[in-house]
């Protein structure tokens, strides 16, 4: 795994719930089917109200019309990112669209757990209210080793909170790989 993630940021507000990340009407696709799985990328973030989509201006498509992947690699959220429904389709949709990391002030519990245990996107926390400092489209770089986010547009470096006790699971790539490495699973 590369130790840095570099890309354009897509900025959202507070309390972005999983219905906004992937609306319920698309949950009939089966994520276990590789062809159907792609559609979670196509519809990722399609439930965000237009004025909230890509702050500060809003009105920004996350995934171009008719495509399966986004040009944004880093999602920046405010407080309580990923609240609401437990659907794992939410971090899966973000990963499927090409997102590698999400940075927010804090997460709703199930979303965070799904990110970690499913190994979809890196859920970083930052005490700074980045949604007021970074604009959609700005280039950012996350340094996983140094645990920082650099806003390349301004050069400003923001410390990220320590990942804590779930780091071994993230490093392993998810709960199955962690448990296999720890000798808890035999195939």
């Amino acid at each position, binding site marked *: 795994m590369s130790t840095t993630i570099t890309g354009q940021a897509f900025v959202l507000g507070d309390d972005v719930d999983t*219905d906004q990340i992937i609306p319920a009407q698309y949950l009939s696709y089966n994520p276990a089917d590789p062809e159907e799985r792609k559609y979670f990328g196509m519809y990722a973030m399609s439930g965000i109200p237009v004025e909230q989509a890509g702050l500060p201006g809003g009105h920004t498509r996350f995934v171009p019309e008719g495509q399966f992947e986004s040009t944004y690699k880093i999602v920046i959220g405010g407080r309580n990112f990923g609240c609401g429904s437990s659907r794992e389709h939410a971090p899966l949709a973000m990963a499927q669209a090409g997102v590698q990391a999400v940075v927010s002030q804090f997460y709703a519990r199930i979303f965070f757990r799904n990110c970690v245990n499913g190994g979809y996107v890196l859920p970083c926390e930052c005490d700074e209210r980045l949604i007021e400092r970074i604009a959609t489209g700005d280039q950012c770089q996350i340094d996983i080793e140094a645990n920082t986010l650099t806003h390349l547009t301004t050069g400003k470096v923001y410390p990220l909170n320590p990942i804590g006790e779930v780091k071994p699971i993230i490093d392993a790539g998810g709960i199955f790989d962690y448990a296999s490495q720890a000798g808890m699973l035999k195939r």
Partner: protein
Amino acid sequence: MPRPMTMTEKILAAHAGRSDVQPGENVWVDVDILMTHDVCGPGTIGIFKERFGDDAKVWDPDRVVIIPDHYIFTADQKCHRNIQILRDFVRQHGLRYYYDPDFVTSEPGMPNPYKDPTKTHYKGVCHKALPEEGHIRPGEILLGTDSHTCTAGAFGQFATGVGNTDAAFVLGTGKTWLKVPPTMKFVFHGQIPPYLTAKDLILAVIGEISVSGATYKTMYFAGDGVASLTLEDRMTLTNMAIEAGGKNGVCDVDEKTLQYVRARSNVPNWMVYADDPGAGYIFEHEWDLATLEPLVAKPFSPDNRDTAYNCREVKVDRAYIGSCTGGKITDMIFAASLLRGHSVKVPTFVVPGSTEVHADMKRLNVHGEPCQTGDKSIEDVLLDAGCQLAPSSCAACLGGPADTFGRLNEPMTCISTTNRNFPGRMGHKDAGVYLASPLTVAASALTGSITDPREYVGEPIVTGTAGTV
């Protein structure tokens, strides 16, 4: 002296093989029951097969419960296919506890619903069906691939929602890791007045602490006010713990709980835990039920609390009564008591929370007693008032496919007994949803504007034996 512990700490300690656990520590626990449904089941099964192999066995076929409930009444072929994936898995693994929508076939188009709710294997919404079918017992750990799995905490157990990967891991191993949550205590004093239901209580709590106020925490609902509630109304409290970010919600076990569980479950042995005197709470808040007013949560967040009275100028385009939160038989009695003899002014959609609720709506009168000659059933009363009734399912609570009954396909204002009103939750992302009790929803359906149910409710509403054993 052992450290005083909460119910949740005791349950997690017992399932981790420990005498003590501390809030904040991670423990590996044995899971008693794993539940999944048609929306998350196929993905869970896919991960299970990928990780454990096509021929792998589930850890215990009698501890896996599969309840299709989300996308049943839709012509979307993928949804029918997803139910077939569940059927194939159930057959392969010999699972006993599967509640098939037997009327869903490979024929294209909208399935013909059950004719008689007592004559189908289908049970309706998982959180209501789980206790009805005897899968919920005090002291146990339930994990489910649905955020409202926390509902079952009303029975004094640890119940929480997980994703597909976690569920697949449990399917193969029977184990998961959990971070022990600290407990917040919410105390309600007094008897619940006739114009309030548990929905008003939980909207008060969420409005107080916000949609993230209980993140990673246990919400313990206590006091004589909670003891006075029916089990179904307690389920409304724990159901919406997730709307405050709660990991789980719990109520004390009492005679009502024991009676229900003994009548429903065929598992004879389980443990009843209670908080020790002196157990530590990181937050406590008290309410006097006599001073609480009927509440709503305004768009677009469950913590956007206001009184129904303050919103009296708000016109509504439709009313919705249903879901695991507000589609139980007592919810139907609350609504029917108020609608009886009147006509709704706006389209009013009613969806029973389970096929048992649907059967009880036909069997019981508005006092919750079996219909005698000449009595109108709850269903009759609602239909006479002009409500539209659909078979049980999650229906429009979470929007769903475009042909879902009651779905908000246009920008409009809806008052609803459901649980969540973030943008797009019930369909169109510009549709505004007001969350409220079945009394407030029924009162608003009668006037076409948000209406304080005190304008209609005088006498206490008796629910009789409804929703008990």
